[in-house]
C-alpha cells in the first residue's frame, strides 16, 4: 500500500507540491488529472526518487517502508515503476540490452538469480508481441529515433517485463494513435491485479474508457483539490477544471 502524507516538495527552491495526501491500496487504480503545470509529473518524480526533488515536509511510505532514504534504484527493486511522460534516449544501448540489464539489476537487488538468456528472449518475444513492439525496435537504441507512440509502447513493454507492484503512468496516452491506445491499455489492464497499485496521470477521459479507474483525483497548484469516482473524469471532460481551480483560488 502506498501512503503519501502531507507531501511538500520543491525543485531548485521552487515549491511545487504543497501538501498531498493520497493512499493507494493494492488492486486499486487511481487517476490523477489536472491542469498543465499543476505538479503531476513532479509527484511522479518524487515517488520514483529523482534527485533534486526535495521533500520538505510530509512522507511517502510503501508497504510500511519509509521511502525518504531510498534511492530510485532501490525503489524500483521494491516494486516502483514510472512510465515517463518524456522517455529518455539512451544512445548506443539496444532496447533489448536495456531490458535485460534492468531486469537483472532488479533481480540482483532482490537477491535473485539472473535470468538466463533463453528465458529472457522468450519472455521479451511474448510481451513485445502483445504490445506490437517489433523485433526491429528491440534492436534499436532505446528511445533513439522512436516516434512518440513507440516510446510510450516501449515504456509499457518495460513495465510488463519488470512486473512492478506500484505503477505510475505519466500521460502514457499522449502521442498514441487510436489503435496504439487500445493496445497499450490492454497491456496495462492485463497487469491489473489484486496485488498491484496503479496511478494513471492523464488529461483525457478516452484513456479512462479503457483503463477504468477506481478513484479520480484533481491536482491543482500542487494539491489534490477534488477526489471522486470514475464519473468525475466525465464531468471534467465536459466542464474543464474551472470549477475546482477557481474554488481553490477563492
Amino acid at each position, binding site marked *: 500500500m502506498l501512503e503519501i502524507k502531507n507531501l511538500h516538495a520543491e525543485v531548485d527552491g521552487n515549491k511545487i507540491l504543497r501538501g498531498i495526501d493520497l493512499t493507494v491500496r493494492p488492486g486499486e487504480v487511481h487517476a490523477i488529472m489536472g491542469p498543465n503545470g499543476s505538479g503531476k509529473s513532479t509527484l511522479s*518524480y518524487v515517488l*520514483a*526518487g*529523482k*534527485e*533534486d526533488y526535495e521533500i520538505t515536509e510530509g512522507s511517502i511510505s510503501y508497504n510500511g517502508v519509509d521511502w525518504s532514504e531510498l*534511492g*530510485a*534504484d532501490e*525503489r*524500483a*527493486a521494491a516494486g*516502483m*515503476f*514510472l512510465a*515517463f511522460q518524456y*522517455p*529518455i*534516449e*539512451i*544512445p*548506443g*544501448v539496444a532496447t533489448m*540490452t*536495456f531490458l535485460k*540489464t*534492468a*531486469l537483472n*539489476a*532488479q533481480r540482483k*537487488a532482490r537477491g535473485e538469480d539472473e535470468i538466463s538468456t533463453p528465458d529472457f528472449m522468450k519472455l521479451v518475444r511474448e510481451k513485445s508481441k502483445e504490445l506490437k513492439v517489433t523485433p526491429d525496435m528491440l534492436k534499436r*537504441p532505446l528511445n533513439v529515433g522512436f516516434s512518440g507512440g513507440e516510446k510510450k509502447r516501449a515504456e509499457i513493454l*518495460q513495465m510488463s517485463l*519488470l512486473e512492478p507492484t506500484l505503477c505510475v503512468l505519466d500521460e502514457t496516452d499522449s502521442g498514441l494513435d487510436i489503435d496504439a491506445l487500445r493496445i497499450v491499455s490492454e497491456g496495462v489492464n492485463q497487469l491489473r491485479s489484486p496485488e498491484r497499485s496503479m496511478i494513471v496521470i492523464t488529461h483525457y477521459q478516452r484513456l479512462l474508457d479503457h483503463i477504468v479507474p477506481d478513484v479520480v483525483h484533481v491536482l491543482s497548484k500542487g494539491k489534490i483539490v477534488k477526489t471522486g469516482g470514475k464519473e468525475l473524469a466525465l464531468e471534467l471532460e465536459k466542464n474543464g477544471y474551472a470549477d475546482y481551480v477557481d474554488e481553490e483560488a477563492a
Partner: protein
Amino acid sequence: MDAKLASGGISSLENDGRATWARVEYPKIDFEDLHYYAAPKNTEGPKSLDEVDPELLETYKKLGIPLSEQEILAGVAPENRVAVDAVFDSVSVATTFKEELAKAGVIFCPISEAVREHPELVQKYLGSVVPVSDNFYATLNSAVFSDGSFVYVPPGVRCPMELSTYFRINEKNTGQFERTLIIADKGSYVSYLEGCTAPQRDENQLHAAVVELVALEDAEIKYSTVQNWYPGDSEGKGGIYNFVTKRGDCREKNSKISWTQVETGSAITWKYPSCILRGDNSQGEFYSIAISNGHQQIDSGTKMIHLGKNTASRIISKGISAGVSQNTYRGQVSAHRKASNARNFTQCDSLLIGDKCGAHTVPYIESKNSSAVFEHEATTSKISDDQMFYCQARGLDEEEAVALIVNGFVRDVIQQLPMEFAVEAQKLISISLEGSVG
C-alpha cells in the same frame, strides 16, 4: 639484423627526444633505474594458478575470464582455442597452435625465432615501417628490444584463427620493449589481438613497444588492442607509462589496415597507431575507446597519411574522462600532392563524468591535393542527470547506470572488436569506471 638495428638505435639515443607534442606530464624517467630487459626468474612459469599473483587473478575474475584461459594468461597451461604467444615478462615462454598455423603456411613466432628461422623476411621488413630514428621511444626500443611477436601470412591465405598475444609486465621496474612485426602478403587476411593486464606496482614502469604492420596488394590486417595496465593508485602513484609506437603501411594497392583499441589502463598513455596509405585505393581505419579515470593522462589518436590515389581513411574516437584525468585525442590527417581523391572521415566524441576531468580534441589537417575531402566531426557531452535517473528508475545502481551509458557511447567501436574481445572490453569498461560516480 638485430645487431644492425640495435647499434643504430644506441647512437640516436643520445639526443633525448622525449614526447613533446603530447599533453602529458610525467617526471623524467631515470633510464638507469629501469631494467631494460627482465627475464622471468622461473622460465617454466607457475605450475598451477595457486602460484600466480592473487591480484592478477582477481582482475581476471572481474573480467570473467574462464579458468582455462586464466591459466594461459598466467603462463600455466600450454594450450587454448586462441593461439597465444604469451610474452611473459619479455621472453616468450609459450607458443601454441603453431602446427595448425603452419599447415596454413602462417608463421607466428617470437621475433627472436624469426630472426633465426626466417632471416630473409625479417631483413626485408623489420624497421621498414618504423625506422630506428623515428622517435625517442622507438629508438630506445630499437636499441634494447627484447622480444616480441612475428607474423607472416603468405599470399592468398586467410589466417585460420585470431592471433593473440597477452602481454604482462611482471618484474618490478621492468621496461618493456617488445617489437611486433606483422606482414600480410598479397591477398591475405589476418586479425591480431593484443591484450594486457598488469598487477599493482609501486614504481612507474615504462612500456615502449614498437608494432609494425605491412599489408601488400589486396591484403588486410586487423589489429585489436585491449590495454589495461596498472594506472597507479588513488594518488596517481606507481602506474605504467605506455609510450608505444604503432604504425601500419598499406604498401600496395587495395590493401587495408585497421586499428581498434580499447585503452583503459596506464598512468600515462602516449600512442598514435597510424596508417601510411601508400598503395592506390588503400584504406586505413582507426577505432578507439580511451577511458581515463583517477589521475590518468591519455594522449592518443592516429595519423592517416594519404600518399596513394583514391585512398580512404576513417577515424572513430570515443574518449571518456572521469576523476581528475586528462584525455586528449590528437589526430593528423594529411594528403600528399599526388594523393588525388583522398577521403577521410573523422568522428571524435568525448564524454565527461564529473567536472574535474578534461577532454581535448586536437585535429591536424593538412592537404596538398585539392581533390582531397576531409570531414571532421567532434562532440563533447556529459552523462545527463535525466539519463542517470531513467536508468536508476529501472533498477540500475549508479555504477551500473554509468557503465551502461558508457557502453552505449562506445558501441560503434566495440562492434569492431572480435567477439571474445568485445565481451571482455565491455566488462573492462565497467571495472575501469568503478568509483567514478557518487
